[in-house]
């Protein structure tokens, strides 16, 4: 019976072919480490955010007079409303944590390189959509930090030459963040996830075309590829279990860890909080904004600090595979970059001025220098490595890669 049903469907829809292509016959490098688990986790979090968000929207009221109360209604009166809300608010932070790790893995192992540029760029679009969605979602509880965060960030667009004020007015729908802003942010916060889902599908289609990268950085021979299912479904589900334990630790025992205390006070346009800070995942970029005293310059630098990731396939001129694994200099720079981002995040959380400003400027210079000097030191590093003789493990890998060899020989 079930076989007949599947045959019936297969004649009309490529169900079995799809399952084969995407799961049971999808070749995956067997040497993937747990760092390759985070794409799956991001997909899980996208679903969690959409589902919990739909239930929150059933009880939430996007109105400046009702929004804060409706969140408290969810927290106190709706059955398990507190759980749904804490899943959603903790989920937002977890989403960024997972995405940052996913990006760091890509940078470390050089997974952005040919032929995976489109994956990296669709990921870049996903990051921007995620940031937009998180920023608009943060306004909805209508707390002090929601309001003032939105007020500060929307006013940044005022730095646009000539039409700055008009853009800010157009974004807010009012001269200040108000009812019009709250309503449109709610509508857009519900809309953007659909764009994210669409972009994720593109991301996955590209993945299923170029296949996963792997720690060695070169395409493995067929014998070293194993089907995604059951091997990586089993591995990813175990990883999901570990993730969920940590995640639920926050949801049940420290749910307000990621929520600013000031956001438990209703928004008051007449009282500016002494210290406005964005959510932790925006802190490094916020620090870069503040490192440049000029408003327009700051906004441009902040935008570039996010967009510059897209240039990685062009900036990295080294042809040594395996990312940081076989590239000692790149590895050092990678760790410097990670520390630098952490420093920027700390600086972004502090009140501006004095030493903090000087550290901020230095960290911002390092941030951009890492990218802008990459074309030079990556090429120099490759020459140095080749002159020294590649490590035997790497040479063996290179010799085993049939696709890479002809290209390399023509270049030498």
């Amino acid at each position, binding site marked *: 019976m079930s076989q007949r049903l599947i045959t019936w469907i297969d004649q009309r829809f490529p169900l079995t072919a799809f399952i084969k292509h995407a799961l049971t016959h999808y070749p995956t490098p067997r040497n993937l480490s747990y760092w390759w688990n985070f794409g799956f986790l991001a997909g899980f979090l996208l679903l969690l955010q959409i589902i919990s968000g739909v239930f929150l929207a059933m009880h939430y009221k996007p109105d400046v007079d009702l929004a804060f109360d409706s969140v408290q209604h969810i927290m106190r009166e709706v059955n398990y409303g507190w759980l749904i809300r804490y899943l959603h608010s903790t989920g937002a932070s977890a989403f960024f944590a997972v995405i940052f790790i996913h990006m760091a893995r890509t940078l470390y192992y050089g997974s952005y390189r040919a032929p995976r540029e489109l994956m990296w760029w669709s990921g870049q679009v996903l990051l921007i959509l995620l940031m937009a969605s998180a920023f608009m979602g943060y306004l909805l509880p209508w707390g002090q930090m929601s309001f003032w965060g939105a007020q500060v960030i929307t006013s940044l667009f005022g730095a646009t030459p000539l039409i700055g004020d008009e853009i800010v007015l157009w974004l807010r729908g009012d001269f200040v963040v108000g009812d019009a802003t709250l309503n449109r942010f709610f509508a857009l916060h519900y809309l953007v996830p659909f764009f994210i889902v669409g972009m994720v599908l593109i991301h996955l289609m590209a993945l299923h075309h170029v296949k996963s990268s792997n720690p060695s950085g070169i395409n493995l021979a067929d014998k070293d590829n194993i089907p995604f299912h059951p091997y990586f479904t089993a591995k990813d589900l175990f990883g*999901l279990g570990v993730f969920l334990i940590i995640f639920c630790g926050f949801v049940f025992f420290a749910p307000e860890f990621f929520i600013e205390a000031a956001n438990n006070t209703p928004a008051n346009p007449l009282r500016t909080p002494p210290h406005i800070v964005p959510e932790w995942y925006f802190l490094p970029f916020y620090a870069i904004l503040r490192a440049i005293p000029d408003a327009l310059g700051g906004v441009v630098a902040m935008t570039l600090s996010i967009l510059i990731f897209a240039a990685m396939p062009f900036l990295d001129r080294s042809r040594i595979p395996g990312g940081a694994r076989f590239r000692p200099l790149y590895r050092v720079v990678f760790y410097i970059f990670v520390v630098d981002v952490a420093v920027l995040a700390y600086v972004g*959380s502090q009140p501006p001025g004095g030493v903090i400003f000087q550290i901020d400027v230095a960290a911002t210079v390092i941030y951009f220098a890492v990218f802008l000097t990459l074309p030079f030191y990556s090429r120099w590093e490759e020459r140095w490595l080749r002159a020294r003789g590649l490590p035997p493990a790497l040479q063996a890998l290179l010799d085993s890669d049939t696709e890479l060899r002809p290209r390399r020989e023509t270049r030498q």
Partner: protein
Amino acid sequence: MKLRALICVLLCAASTAWAENALKDVDLDSSPAALRRGAVTVTSRCLSCHSVKYLHYRDLLKLDFSREEVMSMGNLESALLALTPAEVSEQAYGRVPPDLSLLAKAREGGPRYIYTLLTGFYQDQTGEINNHLYPGIRMPDILGWSGADSTQRAALAIQANEAAAFLMWAADPRADERKSLGYYTIAYLALLTGLLYLVKRKVWARLK
């Protein structure tokens, strides 16, 4: 490696939250009896000017008050509203006294902030009542801390402690339910993850 960065960021964020060294250390007494006494303090003292509007009197039944006790405080179905109308308080104090429902979450340090504020009143040289934590505060010294001697203060400190504990409960009345559900959830997930690990090992054992 970003994980380490993340942990660093989180620790930094936590450190700013706890940098409130102006706050007194207090061992919050959240026993049911203390919460009930705190509720009495808050409804009889604080409610003269402040509201606790996200609580209804019926919610106090969850603290094991008897129905009669709660009904003597107020109507079961009404919210804990201030006895003084907002306009009158605004006239008297310059602004409407803040609602206390979420105060324990809305200030860095939470209940410690409330405790420190209540026990921070003093009489300055001009005879005016002021507050160490909140200089220039308009709120009167509701517990009478500034005029109390050390034995009286010991009792008042307990009263402030219980009021802070009650307001913490008011800000997060689902905390007990959340934590107990949390233990079950984590235990379940730990078991599930252990089994998933065994599944993963068994599946991968087919590879040689």
